[in-house]
């Protein structure tokens, strides 16, 4: 067989996919970059400049004033959501793994079930449940614990972002539990049994056998969760307040602003999100490489 027939077929079958992704994704990203440097904004002065970057990172305008507090707020939400989800996901997976056999199928179905609810709907569900005239407030009121809706604590659309955090935690615990469970189930049970025979206590087995086994997957999955929470729009848009806002909400508001100059600033903010997410993804891949 000559070399060419070995080489050309793969690219032929890849060509449509590469063309579509290259054009749609590649060109879009380039246009976005160009926009952030002041090109293509539709305004008169279309020249290469770093105005938008300066305005966002060090400006005194609306973008500059809110960017860093939004950045901090995003870090807080993504950080705490990821941390709690990782710990929760780990323990749910360990618990489920200890209960193979009867009923375990239903338990995994329960975890997968959360896939059926897009984040958008999940956030709406929390809104109906936790708002001040929501179901929970009604239940408390009927038990006589509170009298009026305003006595119910502000849990969604609050300044600390508790509603957003609750939304992400309740969605990501099953997500991470499934990842950890996949690792635990692919491993032979023997390690645990060996450790137990050698006299390891339950805590020691967890600490020296289970955790090292699942840690790379759990970390890489957690980083995925962090990247997702950091860059997702729907949940903070529905469950957030006017101030402080998460970065994606801020970015979209500037981008859709009728003032065309602020579009470039919106683009810069979303590029800042992208940079953070790409760094996180690179670390996540490093962990994943360690697994296999």
């Amino acid at each position: 067989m000559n070399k060419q027939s070995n080489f050309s077929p793969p690219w032929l079958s890849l060509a449509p996919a590469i063309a579509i992704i290259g054009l749609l994704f590649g060109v879009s990203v380039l246009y976005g970059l160009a926009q952030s440097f002041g090109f293509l904004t539709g305004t008169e002065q279309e020249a290469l400049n770093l105005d938008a970057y300066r305005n966002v990172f060090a400006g005194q305008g609306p973008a500059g004033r809110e960017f860093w507090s939004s950045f901090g707020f995003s870090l807080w939400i993504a950080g705490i959501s990821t941390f709690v989800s990782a710990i929760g996901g780990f323990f749910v997976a360990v618990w489920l793994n200890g209960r193979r056999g009867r009923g375990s199928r239903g338990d995994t179905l329960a975890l997968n079930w959360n896939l059926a609810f897009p984040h958008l709907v999940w956030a709406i569900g929390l809104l109906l449940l936790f708002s001040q005239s929501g179901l929970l407030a009604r239940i408390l009121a009927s038990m006589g614990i509170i009298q009026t809706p305003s006595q119910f604590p502000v849990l969604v659309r609050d300044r600390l972002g508790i509603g957003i955090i609750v939304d992400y935690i309740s969605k990501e615990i099953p997500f991470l539990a499934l990842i950890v469970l996949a690792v635990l189930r692919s491993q032979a049970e023997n390690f645990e049994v060996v450790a137990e025979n050698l006299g390891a206590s339950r805590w020691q087995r967890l600490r020296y056998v289970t955790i090292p086994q699942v840690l790379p997957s759990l970390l890489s999955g957690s980083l995925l969760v962090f990247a997702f929470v950091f860059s997702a729009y729907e949940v903070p848009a529905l469950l957030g307040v006017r101030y402080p806002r998460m970065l994606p909400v801020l970015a979209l508001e500037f981008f859709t602003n009728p003032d065309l100059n602020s579009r470039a600033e919106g683009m810069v903010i979303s590029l800042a999100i992208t940079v953070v997410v790409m760094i996180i993804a690179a670390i996540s891949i490093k962990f994943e490489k360690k697994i296999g």
Partner: protein
Amino acid sequence: MKKILNAVIRFFLYLVLIAPLLLFGVYAFSERWFFPDVLPSTWTTAPFLRLFSDPKTVGGLLTSIGIALVVSLFSLIVAFPAARTLGLRRFPGRQFAWLLFFLPTVVPPLAVGMGMNILFLRLDLAGSFVGVILSHLVPTLPYTIFTLSGLFANYDENYEYQAIVLGASKRRTFFNVTLRLVFPGLIVAGLFAFLISWSQYLLTLLIGGGKVLTLPMLLFSAVSGGNPSTIAALSLLFIAPPVLVIALTARHLNQHGNAIKEQY
């Protein structure tokens, strides 16, 4: 003690399973539900009847179904040959192709959508069905490629050679051997591509510009409108396909211990 703990954990697990549907159900069928009543005083199907007699909702439903169908079918057709090559062949440049497909899964839809917004304005695709469909391909196509290439990584080409040796035509080999072997995986990949498109909000907003009204767009505006029973009824309509898909594919999802690492 341990038994009680297990029962408690399991109770919460199944509560999570049922509670959201129950919650939406109670709100969607409620009428004149005053604080602090725990249950509505009157039950009604009015919110649903309102939805189905509202041309905007029916239009949104049809738009959503149409777009998601085209997107998932097109993704499957384009992803199939690419995934087969990625899964079965080792060739120079494979890493490059892999990276190109991987990048859209990392770069947030927000950034892609903003750039695409300007691109499509220039191409006159903004606000059109075709534009929205093309934008949805950015998340669905890489997802389908990776899911299918995982499928092909465990695929044995020798079955095809055997069919050819026995005198089957290329066409017949494809339909009777290849397609049958990968069919279950193909269906699951297609269903999830459908769901990713179905629940897409940001890209539809940025490309459709309020002209292409899918269900997520209607849902978002319903939330700012604020009638809980309308919101709940619309939510139920919106999650019907995902709930069905998960119920149908639940067995498949756990078979290989694989988790769907895609969020939507």
